[in-house]
């Protein structure tokens, strides 16, 4: 059995915001009819969370339910639980038109925290990240400089960001550069 590691192996950087690799996280793409009672029930049973509304992120202790598109969720769970969660989904949705696939090893999961977190992201994403416009629990898929990324903001003011594993190094260095002391813009201050 191979020893799974995240692409950035727990790296972190402290600039005017803190950028850190969140390590391995179980991630499952679930596509199907998000309004069906079976989908609602199995999302609840496996993550403890409801099916999120449009562009909403719901998160628990080690779980999250993220709205990706009108027919797609990204579910998060502990890395080791993925196989059993997928099995539960497949049993619960048998007969429905759906897809549940393990994407854990195809993703990188970062955290951007600290007072400058909004600004670090705002510099590289075409999104209004002002405190009035982007509030905790909102989920946004967008472009981060030259790569696609998705993130949500938690109640404590930290961003949780998902991008492809293949561009982990680019994403980390990009955020690191954006958070470099001396590069503060102070737009949201």
């Amino acid at each position, binding site marked *: 059995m191979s020893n799974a590691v995240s692409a950035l192996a727990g790296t972190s950087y402290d600039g005017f915001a803190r950028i850190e690799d969140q390590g391995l996280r179980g991630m499952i793409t679930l596509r199907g009819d998000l309004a069906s009672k079976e989908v609602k029930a199995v999302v609840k049973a496996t993550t403890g969370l409801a099916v999120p509304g449009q562009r909403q992120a719901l998160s628990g202790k080690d779980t999250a339910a993220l709205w*990706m598109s009108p027919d*797609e969720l990204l579910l998060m769970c502990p890395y080791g639980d993925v196989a059993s969660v997928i099995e539960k989904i497949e049993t619960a949705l048998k007969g429905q038109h759906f897809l549940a696939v393990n994407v854990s090893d195809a993703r990188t999961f970062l955290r951007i925290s600290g007072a400058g977190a909004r600004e670090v992201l705002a510099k590289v994403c075409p999104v209004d990240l002002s405190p009035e416009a982007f509030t905790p629990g909102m989920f946004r*898929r*967008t*472009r981060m400089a030259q790569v696609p990324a998705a993130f949500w903001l938690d109640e404590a003011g930290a961003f949780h960001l998902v991008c492809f594993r293949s561009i982990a190094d680019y994403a980390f260095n990009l955020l690191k550069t954006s958070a470099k002391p001396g590069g503060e813009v102070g737009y949201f201050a």
Partner: protein
Amino acid sequence: MLILECPCCGVRGEETEFHGGGEAHLKRFGPGSTDDEFHTYLFSKENPKGVHFERWRHNNGCGKWFLAARDTMTLEVFGTYSAQTLEPPKHIRDAITAKRPGWTWRDFS
């Protein structure tokens, strides 16, 4: 700057979050069509200065295709709507008429 609102996920984003997919409301001519029909389908595209209908994909967002009515000169967007439609819906046509009375595009007006 071109600002589009994706009708699938509700995001109002700027152009670089999307990818243009060419002219909207094309009728496809494939195997069995005449050379003229196929040529027209493949190469004869509208290239207006003004009102235009296009396909767009929210490629850095929800990933869905949608259609947009906009002005190619001013980048004003009259509206975006579902890709699962064969012609511009009435509310889109009305929105264009309010801003550009007398507009025409292919067989639509």
